[in-house]
């Protein structure tokens, strides 16, 4: 018996791995889903998400969420931290690619009619995922605290603030005062690294569980 078989057997004896893994491993993927690259888009969005988590944790170790230090800490990441520039740029590119992939994924679902019975709720979860993904982008945009970050957020929160009824509350919750400042920054930071990641993780679990239970929808 080879070593890896021995290790596998050790775990199998204790956790019934074979019983658990066989249905996953043998689960058939329809031929049209394996050969058509459009079915990759959801997976690509998920890969980007994983990259964002990895690079994001790295960035959070150097980033300081206060108006005085934020810009300097990002500058430090870009110039002094080993691989810092690459990691931050990767975070940037993965973020934009994720949004593009989610949009294209949604277009595939729409034009293939993959949201129809019994997948209605997975579409609803999906639209929420789109909202969360773009909110991720919006909240992350402010964090470097450069000119673009500040002014784009000023306009963005202004736009959100003029939604009837809800707007004033959204703007108050986001900005945390009358103008973009230290309050806004810590709020955006908390939203970007705590609230949204937890929410998206729960929704992704639901999304994948539903795909798994309902199977991939039929051909065009």
């Amino acid at each position, binding site marked *: 018996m080879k070593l890896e078989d021995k290790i596998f057997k050790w775990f199998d004896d204790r956790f019934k791995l074979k019983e658990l893994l066989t249905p*996953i*491993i*043998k689960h*058939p*993927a329809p*031929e*049209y889903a*394996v050969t058509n*690259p459009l079915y*990759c888009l959801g997976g*690509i969005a998920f*890969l*980007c998400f994983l990259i964002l988590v990895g690079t994001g944790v790295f960035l959070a170790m150097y980033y300081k969420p206060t*108006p005085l230090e934020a*810009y300097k800490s990002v500058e430090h990441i*870009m110039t002094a931290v080993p691989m810092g520039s*690459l990691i931050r*740029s*990767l975070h*940037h*590119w993965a973020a*934009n*690619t994720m949004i593009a992939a989610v949009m294209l994924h949604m*277009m595939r679902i*729409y*034009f*293939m*009619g993959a*949201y*129809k*019975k019994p*997948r*209605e709720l997975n*579409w*609803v979860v999906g*639209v929420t995922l*789109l*909202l969360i993904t*773009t909110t991720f*982008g919006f909240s992350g*945009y402010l964090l470097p*605290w*450069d*000119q*673009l*970050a*500040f*002014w*784009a957020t000023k306009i*963005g929160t202004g*736009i*959100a603030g*003029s*939604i*009837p009824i809800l707007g004033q509350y959204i703007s108050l919750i986001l900005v945390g005062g009358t*103008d*973009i400042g230290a309050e806004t920054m810590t709020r955006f930071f908390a939203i970007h690294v705590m609230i949204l990641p937890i929410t998206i993780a729960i929704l992704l679990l639901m999304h994948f569980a539903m795909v798994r239970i309902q199977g991939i*929808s*039929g051909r*065009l």
Partner: protein
Amino acid sequence: MSLIEIEKHEVEEERHEPVRIRGFPFFPHFLLREVVVMCLIAGSLILMASLYPAGLLKPADPFDTPTPIYPEWYFLYVFGFLKFWTWDIGPIEAKVIGVTLPMVLWYGLLFMVPFIDRNPSSDIRKRKFAVAMGVIALLGILYFTYYSIVYH
């Protein structure tokens, strides 16, 4: 009555069509393709990140408004629509409409898609209305994105 009957038959026919789907086992076939695609994407991301690093402008200055200010590209269409819509409707200000339509109404409609589109067919030839709406929405988003850049 007869119209309903006909529709029922169609639905039933579709359901009874023998569905023969050829499949591959998840492992290794499906996973292999997935791993190849993911390596390509990850590689491209690293390449783009090295060639075009994320930017950092001057530090934020609340007293110096730069021009032009662009939001992220995926919000440009909201921006564009806000610029485009200059008409008050009765007591409702143009600005409020310009914000509500591309955000609240648009997302509301998106959420409702499976409940608005009751057509059971997923054959693209039998979904002319849904496809037309999708194409119109897409062209609209592209147009307002373009508008926001050109009329900045």
